[in-house]
């Protein structure tokens, strides 16, 4: 369960978040939509505890991130906006590293790693050094490292960019399975078909504020359009950023 309450954050003169509120419930996939610069990444960074909000709060499973960041992060799996790999480690070593940071040990850790490698169909990549991996392979390693500890809440910042069709399908299946197990998934994307197909609820953010929320169907109805893309453009009031 992720709750964002009246979050405000400015960098100098730029008001990145301006009283944003929404929640992502357990057992649902919540989509975070918004044009470039709407404040999605700022919102998520505040949720990770990297940024301190000027006002408002981010709460994960009833833990305030600003007050107990380490406790809150234990409940979180993060697929960040900008990610890199430790290029001198193998994929397995890197996933192992993150598993250990989340406190997994011994046989339990080994099983968790094997599980995530199987789930993401990446056993053949596991023992190669990540230097020279393709964009899609890099995404998979990052996904695996953020999923290995089976987080209760899972936040993904544009997870499908650079993935091929097969990998995107694997990811979608995976997210659906997580949802069925009652996990809370918050995921930002630009791909409307994906959001429409996958998300139970959609949050549309524009100019650091909540512009609209509801199921994809509700949003289409609200805007009087049949396609989510058209509805999105109508709701945010411009076609800026849609093509990105």
């Amino acid at each position, binding site marked *: 369960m992720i709750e964002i309450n009246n979050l405000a954050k400015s960098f100098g003169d730029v008001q990145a978040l301006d009283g944003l509120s929404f929640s992502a419930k357990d057992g649902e996939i919540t989509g975070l939509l918004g044009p470039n610069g709407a404040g999605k990444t700022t919102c998520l960074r505040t949720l990770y505890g*990297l940024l*301190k909000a000027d006002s408002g709060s981010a709460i994960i499973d009833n833990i305030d991130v600003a007050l107990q960041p*380490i406790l809150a992060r234990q409940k979180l799996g993060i697929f960040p906006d900008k990610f*890199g790999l*430790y290029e001198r480690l193998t994929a397995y*070593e890197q996933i192992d590293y993150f598993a*250990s*940071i989340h406190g997994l040990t011994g046989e339990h850790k080994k099983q968790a790693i094997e599980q995530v490698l199987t789930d993401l169909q990446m056993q053949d990549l596991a023992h190669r050094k990540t230097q020279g991996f393709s964009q899609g392979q890099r995404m998979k390693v990052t996904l695996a490292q953020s999923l290995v500890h089976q987080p209760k809440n899972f936040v993904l910042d544009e997870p499908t960019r650079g993935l091929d069709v097969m990998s995107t399908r694997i990811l979608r299946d995976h997210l659906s399975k997580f949802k069925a197990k009652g996990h809370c998934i918050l995921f930002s994307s630009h791909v409307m078909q994906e959001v429409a197909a996958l998300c139970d609820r959609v949050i549309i953010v524009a100019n650091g504020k909540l512009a609209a929320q509801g199921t994809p169907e509700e949003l289409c109805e609200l805007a009087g359009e049949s396609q989510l893309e058209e509805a999105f453009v109508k709701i945010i009031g411009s076609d800026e950023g849609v093509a990105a």
Partner: protein
Amino acid sequence: MIQFKALLAKEYKEAFRDKRALMVAMMMAFLAPVMIFALSKTMIKEMVATPPIYVKVTGAEFAPKLMKQFKDGNILLFKDVPEDEKRLWDERNIALTIPKDFAKNMVEGKTIELVLSTDYSEKAIRAPIRRIKDKIQTYARIIGFKRLLVRGIDVKLLQPIKIYEQDTAQPSSNAAFISLMLGLYLLMAAFMSGLSVAIDSSAGERERNVLEILLCQPVSTLKIVLAKLCTASTISVIGVVLTLTLTSFSVGFVDLSKIGATFSLDLYSILVLLILLIPIGFFASALQLFVSFQAKSFKEAQSTVSMIIMLPTMIPVALMFIDDKPKWLDWLPVSGQSLLMEDLFKNVPINWLEVAATGGVTIAMTIALVMVLAYKLKSEKVVLAL
């Protein structure tokens, strides 16, 4: 503990797998023996050599025995000067005039007047002139003694007083220059060896976008900083140990006793040096991490950290110019260790209290740097390099 072990294992893996950076880090160590060897060799050569002197002698044929004495002392006639040095010795223009009646006056026991003319104010000529005068006077004294001896007079009568000169300078002090260089070099090694790892694991990770993910994990920034510090300092300490080992090996090949130096790196000195330098390795790495974590980019980190490298060279050199050293210099990092190393090389007994004090202050400052850095890594300014 599980977290710290994982962090440490990952840092070590990354550091030791970057073979090229590791080679550069160990460069200092591999160059040390070469430098010490070359330096000592040139110094010995300069201090014990008697290079040839070319004198314009007029009337050399009148005093063949004196000329032989000259030749034995590598003082040669100007006509024999090699082409490439001709100009130099022509300019120096050292001229000795031997009178025609040299042999006649010698037989008659009269004083022979030789004229030695040159520009006495010129510094470079002082040593040759001293050697020429010594040679002539020795020659004259031997003849004088012989004259007295054949007349049955004890030559000791000519010497009512004899001075015995005793040099109280410690023999090792003569090797002061070499030891100063070695001291500087070891400090540099402590600062340089861990450098690439410190920058790579801080500013480098930020630039490769892996730092942000790590800071989003449920792990305290103190553990992260400590793991990185341990890795960088390990490399730094390895650098110092390697430098010491290779240097002690190479010093064995140079005969420093020729210049009266008793400089040696025995096990005891190596141990003392290690006790002095290991805290420096940690301090240097902490300082480098502190600076490069706060740099906006890898390049900025590199240029700022390069400035820190000046520290170990500047402080000992500056200390040389301070005659009346304030007490607190014994306690500070780098300066304290540098002064103690000087004592060690001069064979002055080591003041263990000072070793503990300067080591303690160095470690305390390292801890302070780590704590402040761990705190700073929680601020969004440092995390996102805003």
